[in-house]
């Protein structure tokens, strides 16, 4: 299970402000905190209204690298910003590029970058027609992109499919569609990974943390093995530990028991 810290994200108001103000202390503390809570990777997203991502993303990437030795997920909708950030990336473990999709223009811009840098990559299961309603449409986008990435010599294990989770408040079938997509991805691409941004699922509802946590255990059961989340959320982390023993991914329950003794499990 790969745990990625989501909190360094310019669309979060306080973080966005810190990026615009070049408030390094705030950002460094946020990086350190996520590292201490055990994130395997850290997501770095510098997208903020009024900023310039092509400068901000590499700047932020360097700040993180000065602070901790954690590999990074470089996150932007702007191909130029991604390119700029990858050029300053220096960890020995490959970065995860977040993201490509079936959107042609974006793909055409990122394809040479992927070819040159050979990084891991998140694949959003959407294309120029938007986010598909059905599982079948999502799977056909997965098929197209898997073929393209393999042709670029990106191995299956470096591909992270994102089934795209929508809000159940607006799309009642959003949870079921995502879970079924996860199941199908795991059986069609057993060497690849499935990643999911959890918090969308509860948008517009009260009690969001409970809903997110409940979906998390369902998604882990369906085969999700990479998680983008707030690593400081102890209840969420506790659910991951418990889920792992229940699907036999924690031999002798050692991780769970150690975390329990260290009082990191919320019961």
């Amino acid at each position, binding site marked *: 299970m790969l745990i990625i810290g989501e909190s360094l994200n310019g669309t979060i108001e306080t973080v966005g402000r810190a990026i615009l103000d070049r408030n390094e202390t705030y950002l460094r503390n946020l990086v350190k905190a996520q590292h201490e809570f055990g994130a395997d990777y850290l997501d770095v997203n510098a997208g903020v209204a009024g900023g310039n991502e092509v400068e901000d993303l590499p700047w932020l990437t360097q700040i993180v690298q000065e602070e901790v030795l954690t590999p990074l997920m470089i996150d932007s909708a702007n191909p130029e910003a991604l390119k700029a950030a990858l050029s300053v990336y220096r960890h020995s473990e490959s970065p995860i590029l977040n993201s490509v999709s079936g959107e042609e223009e974006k793909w055409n811009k990122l394809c040479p970058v992927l070819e040159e840098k050979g990084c891991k990559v998140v694949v959003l299961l959407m294309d120029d027609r938007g986010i598909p309603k059905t599982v079948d449409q999502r799977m056909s986008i997965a098929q197209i992109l898997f073929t393209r990435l393999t042709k670029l010599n990106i191995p299956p294990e470096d591909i992270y499919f994102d089934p795209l989770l929508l809000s159940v408040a*607006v799309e009642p079938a959003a949870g079921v569609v995502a879970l079924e997509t996860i199941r199908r991805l795991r059986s069609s691409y057993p060497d690849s990974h499935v990643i999911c941004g959890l918090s969308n699922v509860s948008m517009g509802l009260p009690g969001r943390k409970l809903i997110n946590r409940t979906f998390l255990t369902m998604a882990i059961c369906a085969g999700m093995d990479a998680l983008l989340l707030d690593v400081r959320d102890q209840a969420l982390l506790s659910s991951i530990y418990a889920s792992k023993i229940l699907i036999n991914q924690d031999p002798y329950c050692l991780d769970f028991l150690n975390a329990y003794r260290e009082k990191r499990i919320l019961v």
Partner: protein
Amino acid sequence: MIGREKLYALLTQGKVEEVREWTCGALNNGESAETVLKEGFIQAMDRIGLRFKSGEIYIPEVLLAARAMHAGMEVLKPILSRSTTKWSKKVAIGTVKGDLHDIGKNLVGMMLEGGGFEVIDLGIDVSAEKFVEAIEVHQPQIVGLSALLTTTMREMKTILEAIEKAGLKKKVKTIVGGAPLNEQFARGIGADGYAADAASAVEIVASLLEMNLRGPSC
């Protein structure tokens, strides 16, 4: 007198069939379609919108009511469109070019319809040319632009400039919204209004049109 409380109760419970019957009943009792719309539906949906904004009820409950309202509107629309008075104001909405996110935009559309506006949904990935063309064809009073990405929010400026260049700035008011935006950005690109969420979109549209939704029928 129309049974406002009854309609409000039916809408909040999402009773599609009963709302249709209630609407036909009100018309059979001699109420005009305009009265049923304004004193019945708009006021009821406005109450629902206020409860949503105050956090008392949630999106699924608004959608449930909106769906029931549609059943009533299907009865009213053919009659309203025959009458000579303009029965509603039009709002054209769309997600800007390069952006394919439509959940927020759809929600705004449903809330606006609930508020009694006629909504023309231009869809996703809408270019400046398409916005301009839609304004010329449909002649809405308000145009709403949505963007969810920091990369696509810049497109809003392009679209607003195109609207101005086409000489339509005086004919139509513009509002913008989407997760990465804020009031300052909206003002900076010259939009007439900024909507932080779906409920405030309805209020802003109403205030731009200087309409008082809360008062008695206009």
